């Protein structure tokens, strides 16, 4: 048993616990009115486990991350992880039918869901703490006892094809999918998470079973349990439930970094919509890249909060090119993605597109702080840097309010993090300078090419 090993390493690497000689267990004894405590360990079968005790509500949240996503698919198996996500949740195991699972879920007052991405598939359940044992056993059953049948397989394919149509009807969701598909040509990340229609239609029980047996193994998973329990009791329960699952070595899956996009890609779609939608994507730092902290600050300054820089560029003064703007940053294992989302009047598409790209390109020369502006202009300059940092401090606090969100984050981090040096998020954010923002602006937004997706009304 490698008790605490990897997670302890992570946290000690962050500098805080080690520097202050604090052990979580001794410093924060569990109890109904105590601070939360953290525990981590790895089972002999390779399953990584993180327990976070918190008593704000009588709930327990269990999240399993599986190291499987589009990164592990081929053209022929495109969408197989997403397919498994559906099947695992709804189609039954060797012990229970899909209907029985659904009824069990309801009887226990559970929220039950899953998500698939480029790197990971995540399976989550949240329910009253008195049903903790059910939560663990349910997740074990669905993840490790899958029963594949041709009839259920064909039924779920139809549901997924409906989901694909629904995504393609949604301008922003489809625009986001197209950004990913075009930003990483030749790389597994380019495949749509939900799969290519023909590949989904062609999936067989053998295909799915092969992928499932290779990828859904304890050594390729992390389990986070967050909620109203005692650490010692939960540790024993997790070992009791998941300990007997046989260990299988994970498949080695080397994943290269994607090559830079050679040329800007423009995609124009016509839909039966009244508003125009513009989605602009560019590659960014990956999950383990130290640039990620500045990237978080940068998207706050550019496209989040009350009056971000893109808002000023596109709506400031007499210009009123857009109705809304927001910017996101997603960090994957081997790549990152910046995306700007705009809604606007169709007549402003060309001007808004041009101005947005120009603003992004200009980040390397932009001022982010009043301190960088001199003379009378300082009075009218906005303090984007400090504002962005405070926005992120708020995000930390908001995250702390959601047990399921914490579970999701911890399980995901356990599989994506590759750094023994660790992180100290808020200190990194606090230490980010305007020069850091310009530097990553130059690196990712000035030099990189864009994928630009326009969704505009059909001519009537």
């Amino acid at each position, binding site marked *: 048993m490698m008790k605490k090993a990897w997670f302890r390493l992570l946290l000690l690497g962050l500098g805080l616990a080690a520097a202050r000689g604090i052990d979580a267990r001794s410093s924060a004894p569990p109890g109904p009115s105590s601070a939360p405590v953290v525990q981590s360990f790895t089972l002999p079968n390779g399953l990584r486990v993180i327990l976070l005790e918190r008593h704000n509500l009588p709930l327990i949240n269990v999240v399993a991350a599986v190291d499987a996503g589009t990164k592990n698919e081929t053209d022929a198996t495109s969408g197989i992880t997403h397919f498994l996500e559906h099947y695992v949740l709804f189609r039954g195991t060797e012990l229970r039918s899909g209907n029985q699972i659904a009824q069990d879920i309801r009887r226990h007052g559970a929220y039950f869901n899953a998500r698939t991405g480029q790197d990971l598939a995540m399976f989550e359940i949240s329910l009253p703490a008195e049903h903790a044992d059910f939560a663990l056993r349910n997740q074990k059953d669905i993840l490790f006892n899958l029963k594949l049948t041709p009839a259920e397989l064909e039924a779920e394919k139809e549901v997924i094809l409906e989901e694909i149509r629904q995504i393609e009807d949604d301008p922003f969701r489809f625009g986001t999918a197209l950004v990913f598909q075009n930003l990483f040509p030749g790389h597994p990340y380019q495949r749509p998470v939900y799969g290519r229609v023909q590949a989904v239609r062609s999936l067989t029980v053998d295909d799915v079973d092969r992928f499932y047996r290779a990828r859904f193994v304890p050594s390729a998973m992390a389990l986070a349990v967050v909620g109203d329990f005692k650490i010692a009791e939960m540790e024993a329960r997790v070992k009791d439930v998941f300990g007997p699952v046989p260990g299988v070595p994970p498949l080695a899956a080397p994943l290269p970094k994607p090559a830079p996009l050679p040329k800007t890609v423009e995609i124009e779609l016509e839909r039966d919509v009244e508003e125009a939608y513009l989605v602009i994507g560019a590659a960014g730092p990956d999950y383990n890249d130290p640039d990620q902290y500045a990237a978080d600050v940068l998207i706050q300054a550019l496209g989040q909060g009350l009056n971000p820089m893109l808002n000023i560029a596109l709506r400031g003064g007499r210009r009123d090119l857009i109705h809304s703007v927001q910017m996101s940053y997603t960090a994957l294992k081997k790549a990152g993605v910046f995306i700007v989302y705009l809604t606007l009047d169709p007549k402003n598409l060309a001007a808004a597109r041009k101005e947005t790209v120009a603003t992004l390109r200009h980040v390397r020369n932009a001022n982010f702080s009043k301190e960088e502006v001199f003379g009378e202009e300082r009075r009218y300059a906005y303090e984007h840097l400090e504002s962005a940092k405070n926005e992120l401090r708020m995000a930390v*606090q908001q995250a702390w309010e959601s047990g399921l969100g914490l579970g999701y984050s911890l399980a995901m981090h356990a599989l994506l993090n590759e750094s023994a040096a660790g992180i100290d998020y808020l200190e990194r954010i606090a230490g980010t300078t305007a020069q850091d923002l310009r530097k990553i602006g130059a690196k990712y937004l000035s030099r990189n090419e864009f994928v630009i997706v326009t969704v505009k009304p059909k001519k009537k």
Partner: protein
Amino acid sequence: MRRRRSLLAAAAAVLAVWAGARPAPLRAEELKRSALDNGLAVISQRDTASTLTVLEILIRGGQTAEPAGKAGLSYLTTRLAVDIPDQDKVQDFMAKALHYSVSAKADYSVIHLECLSEFFDDAAATFVEILSDPLFTGVRIDRLKEFMDNQRRLTADDADNAGHAAHLEAFFGNSAYGHSVFGTDDSLKAIKAVDIKDFYGRYFVPGNMTLVAVSDLDESRLAAVLRKRFGGFRKGAPPAPLPPPVSAPANVFSGARDIAKDSLQTLVSAAFALPPLSSRTFILNAVVENTLGRGPGTRLWSLRAELKLAYAVAARATQMKSGGILESTLETEPAKGEEARIALDQALRDFAARGLTPDELEAARAEVKAQLLRGNERKDARAATLGTLEMLGLGAAFFEAFPAELGGVTLEEINAYIKDILAPDRASWVRIGPKR
């Protein structure tokens, strides 16, 4: 897009614990009710799960207080009442990372504030300054009307939202509940600055407003800030007039609406009128909604899992003071549109005829109770729920009474209610998709 932030935030939060920077005990405390000197009601709750303060400023009236032909006035007024008047204040709010938003509902409107608690006093001071002396200028009004046009277009672009709007219109017609909170082209043109000033003057008065605050600040500190910042707000203003009552929904409505949209999927939706709201119907509606279409194991789920008609199937209850609607919706490929309509109709007829089984009622109780906890774990969600309950006349304290009252629902009661509201000949049907 929020996942990435929460991921890093979680790491930081866990680190803080390991480093010994421990927050105070993680417990939400009981609700407190008080009133400021000017008559403004305050509902507060201490919650140390984070160092954030959430404040909801609620104004009774909403769409029901809009004069005929002035649809959109409630939203317009509420939004303009907190429109930041100058760059200094924009800078100030940006520096404090203040989050604020405005929404108008059928029976009230709400201003939502959220910030790090260390900034709450300063932010509240500036905010009340704006709210006390809002700028209702022509430029601001025109700009906001354009934004509201845009919001209506976004609603039309989303089939689910467009279907919801069509059902409300079907049941409530031209009454306050029947139109968009963003008004219409004609109603917005009809609204002048004087209308906005008048609406503000009548309804933005302490006796007609309630503050809901959820914060980690200790009780006396929070009370002091609210007293200092809001206690003088429009002190002595005359009481607000009572909005005219909204007619109960047209409970005999039965019709279908076909909205052509060149989309890849067709939305098929049925809705039924709900009676005027009471604490009992609130609970019964929650049970019905949950049993009918809230995920795996509910009645509509078979349309997805067995009949393979859709990815998304759901039931949704919209509850307003004088009535509401219960919608059941799915989206399917256009070729299956009619098959989906027939299947949905059959599922609803079965539900009305047979009602719930004892096991289903037990499961619904467990689900609804757990959802109450989960859905209100975050401060912003809880403050919104408390405000909604207060504005709908159920009282914020109903939040705490809800689990016990839910336990009192009997099989006979719920099945009689289902039979009453889901009468097939009283349905409104909406289909949005390619022309047949």
